[in-house]
């Protein structure tokens, strides 16, 4: 049984078809990275997976359960799917610690004391225990994103989805966030949309190259970077590496 299985999903906005029949799987503790040019539906795909924006057609299976089934309790499912946003979306009125613990307290109904303890542990994991009492507006972008990751981790999700977690950050802050993600690799299933090719190459178990709402090619990093089967993949990766430099 796969941790996550996406089966042939379609999504349109009006007459604009964004996803055109995508299928792939993510296994336990596996790290998959989705790459592709902007506007090819990568973010839409993630929102379709946790049903923030349900797909028009197709199925999403999580731990052997069809979560596109309309009778399912989405709030229960979403607890199992962590989500890390491009623009953090930390709760502005809560401290870093409260941001991490609120899901535990209000959704998982864990007692306040235990929830705080667990939240603090997660903040320690992302290196922010010292900032636990600060409000989002007092944190740097990189720190905010690490709180965002801790918030997702605290719920003990089956899988975490990352929607371009570093693209709103100043270049010198990206490293901290990527380090945290690197440490998570192999410990929890992750599906990551990113433009950080160096990270993708070093950390991913598999890379999925997406364009025009479909998967062009997927495979292990070495194959994708050194010996892609499709001409389009070669072009894209070639342009990316001239843009960002080889790592």
């Amino acid at each position, binding site marked *: 049984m796969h941790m996550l299985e996406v089966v042939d999903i379609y999504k349109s906005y009006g007459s604009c078809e964004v996803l055109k029949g995508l299928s792939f799987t993510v296994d336990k503790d596996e790290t998959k990275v989705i790459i592709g040019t902007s506007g090819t539906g990568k973010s839409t795909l993630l929102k379709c997976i946790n049903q923030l924006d349900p797909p028009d057609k197709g199925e999403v299976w999580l731990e052997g359960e069809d979560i596109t089934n309309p009778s399912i309790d989405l709030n229960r499912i979403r607890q199992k799917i962590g989500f890390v946003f491009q623009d953090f979306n930390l*709760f502005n009125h809560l401290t870093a610690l409260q941001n991490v613990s609120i899901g535990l307290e209000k959704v998982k109904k864990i007692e306040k004391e235990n929830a705080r303890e667990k939240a603090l542990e997660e903040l320690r994991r992302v290196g922010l225990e010292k900032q636990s009492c600060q*409000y989002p*507006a007092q944190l740097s972008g990189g720190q905010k994103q690490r709180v965002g990751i801790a918030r997702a981790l605290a719920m003990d999700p089956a899988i975490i989805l990352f929607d371009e977690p570093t693209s709103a950050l100043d270049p010198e802050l990206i490293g901290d966030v990527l380090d945290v993600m690197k440490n998570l690799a192999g410990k929890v299933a992750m599906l990551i949309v990113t433009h950080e090719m160096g990270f993708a190459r070093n950390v991913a178990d598999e890379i999925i190259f997406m364009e025009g709402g479909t998967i062009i090619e997927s495979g292990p990093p070495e194959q994708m970077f050194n010996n892609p089967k499709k001409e389009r993949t070669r072009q894209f990766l070639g342009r990316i590496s001239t843009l960002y430099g080889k790592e």
Partner: protein
Amino acid sequence: MILLGINSIINNIPFLLEGLGVTIALTVVSVTLATVFGILLAMGRCYTRQPLPFLIYIYEKVFRGLPLLIIFFLVYFGLSQQGIHIKAFYAAVTGLVLHSTAYQIQIFRSAILAIPEGQQTAAMSLGMSKPKTIFYIILPQVLRLSIPGWSNEFTILLKDTSIAFSIGVVELMARGDAINSMNPSGILHVLLFIALLYFILVFSINKGLNYLEKRYRLSGYEVTAVQ
């Protein structure tokens, strides 16, 4: 002249303070009710299906367009003509609440609109239900953002209670009017004294709410609501 005035203030102090008590009671009851309705209807306007938001919008338009005095007359005299007699105090509360709620909906709605959409998306991605999201994530931020607009409305309502004398509520203004008809020769000082009492009330509300705003302001997060 001045002595006469001061005399008429001193003679009437107990009489005036009683009126002040009614003014305060009227204000507190009305502002509380109007705030509760204002928050509920603002949420109704933002979060429910048509036709409810449209009906709330009509309510706002109508009661923001009517003079409070006319609302008082309609509630008090209009109802009693239909055989429904309510005490002047309750008629005044009804009128003030109907009027102030229409303004407060706008205040809270602006604050709701000022909360970034991502706040709700993030809450939902944690598995929070819609009511939980509103209660734990949206409302705490909305209330903070609303304090300046709300405190302004609070003082307006306090000043508006003076109009309740028109339907015979014996609040501060009505006491002034009564003194005027008994003894108009020293009325200037009495009226100035009444003005002073109102001023002190308005001033303390402003100061108190300013303090509240500072106390609950989030460090570094100083977004002002769309006015």
